[in-house]
């Protein structure tokens, strides 16, 4: 294991401690549980709170998107595992400003059932909640079963749009509808080149022979749709972009936001080599790129690989992406 950590069991808590020490102006722990993190100014009276959550190991997901114009809070699990319903419930109370709370997180069973349980607890305390799950990984289910897809990097678009809507004072129904609309128009596909090593066990998140790649891999190493010899950046981009265009049914004249995301160990240089090709393909098809993001937005510790996400935009969605936001890891001015 090539990790700069102390006791593996303390990894998550120490990481959170570091974030709190580094960004006390932006985030805080409202109670005694370090696994609950909220905006420094939470709760915002009269505003919809947005709560996300999930396993650790994906920075800047999920805790990196807590801030102005983004999520209001996060419940943090161990590496790759769900936070508890109790933690989610605590976070819900801490961000509730009277206008209800939107649960917005990735579609994984553990997270879903724990958020649902927490929602039941919140209801008992008269905090209305609604739920929208990110489910953008087109490799995880065919289009007919798209509501069962895993949620990966594309949830960033939903955070950004829903966060902007909550910030301007939209109602819970409105914020949820915006999140749902964005999720509906988001698609992602990734490629994995090497696995994550779990800090506690030293196990690998998946096995891949040297020189091979897995197209469609999930951010916890979930199986993809094609395994074979490593191809060129252009060939990989072609595979991913073709799948995304088909899934979103993009045609000439459409506009998209593009996110080229690194999964951890892959250098930024390679993400730009990928972006280059994505840009060429889309431009060639007369699909215009209204906004682009290149960097690490949702990782899997030191996994090597990348993902490409598209959000099909219209004026409303684009305006929400362009609205100001500020968290420890993301800023839009």
């Amino acid at each position, binding site marked *: 294991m090539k990790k700069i950590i102390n006791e593996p069991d303390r990894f998550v808590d120490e990481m959170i401690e570091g974030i709190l020490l580094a960004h006390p102006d932006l985030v805080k722990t409202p109670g005694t549980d370090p696994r609950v993190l909220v905006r420094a100014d939470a709760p915002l009276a009269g505003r919809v709170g947005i709560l996300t959550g999930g396993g650790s190991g994906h920075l800047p997901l999920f805790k990196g998107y807590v801030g102005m114009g983004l999520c209001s809070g996060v419940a943090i699990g161990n590496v790759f595992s769900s*936070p*508890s319903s109790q*933690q989610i419930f605590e976070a819900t109370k801490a961000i509730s400003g009277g206008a209800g709370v939107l649960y917005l997180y990735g579609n994984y*069973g*553990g997270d879903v059932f724990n958020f649902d*349980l927490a929602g039941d607890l919140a209801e008992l305390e008269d905090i209305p909640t609604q739920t929208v799950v990110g489910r953008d990984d087109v490799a995880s289910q065919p289009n007919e079963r798209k509501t069962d897809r895993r949620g990966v990097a594309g949830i960033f678009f939903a955070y950004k749009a829903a966060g902007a809507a909550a910030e301007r004072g939209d109602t819970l129904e409105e914020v949820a509808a915006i999140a749902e609309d964005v999720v509906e128009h988001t698609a992602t596909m990734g490629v994995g080149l090497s696995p994550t090593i779990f800090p506690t066990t030293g*196990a690998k998140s998946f096995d891949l022979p040297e020189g091979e790649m897995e197209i469609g891999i*999930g951010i916890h190493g979930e*199986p993809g749709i094609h395994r074979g010899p490593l191809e060129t950046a252009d060939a990989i981009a072609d595979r991913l972009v073709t799948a995304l265009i088909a899934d979103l049914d993009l045609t000439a004249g459409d506009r998209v936001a593009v996110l080229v995301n690194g999964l951890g160990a892959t250098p930024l240089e390679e993400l730009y080599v990928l972006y280059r090709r994505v840009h060429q393909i889309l431009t060639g098809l007369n699909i215009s790129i209204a906004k682009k993001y290149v960097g690490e937005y949702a990782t899997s510790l030191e996994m090597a690989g990348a993902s490409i996400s598209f959000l099909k935009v219209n004026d409303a969605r684009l305006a929400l992406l362009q609205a100001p936001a500020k968290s420890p890891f993301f800023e839009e001015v």
Partner: protein
Amino acid sequence: MRPVELNESIRRSLAELVGYADELRDLDQALGDGDLGVTISLGANAVIESLTTLADDATPAEIAKTCAKAFANANPSTMAALVAGGLLAGSKTWAGLTEIGTADAGRFIRAAGENIGQRGKTQIGDKTILDAIMPAADALEVASDGTSGLDAAIAGAERAVVETRDLQSRRGRASWMQERSIGLQDPGATAFWRYLESWRAAESVAAKGKELA
């Protein structure tokens, strides 16, 4: 069974269940992410701990709620949340009861199963824990006495577990394996079956202990 006996029986059976943690880890490794062993052992120990400090006058429903809370937070996961939600739903069928019999156990388990089915958007045959729960509820509800009811419940659960091998997983992490899930035994269903077996084993040891005393 009175509350204090119930409390003790649950603790004994969970201590027994921890012995199956490695089996469950391996099954979940093959079909999912391998954390079910940890969920079961941390969850069982957390429940044992909170039952140990629970007041003697706690009702059966309160005991079930205590189990739910401890299990939910020990190692959050699909199983932790579904089981906790199931226990809460089950506890509602025990409202007002000060003692519980075999049929009460059956009703509890059915309510838990229905809750899990709802929350998990699952039906029997989807290759989940539900497949093992429902036959056990059936057996307990019609049983003439506790011992035969438990035996029948275990037999029904075991049959269901074995049958999961031929099914394709339709829910959760395992469903991503699609056809490759066929041939592998569902870890969640196995966990429930092993829990019933743990109960029987623990009770028979306890009964022997009482005989000797």
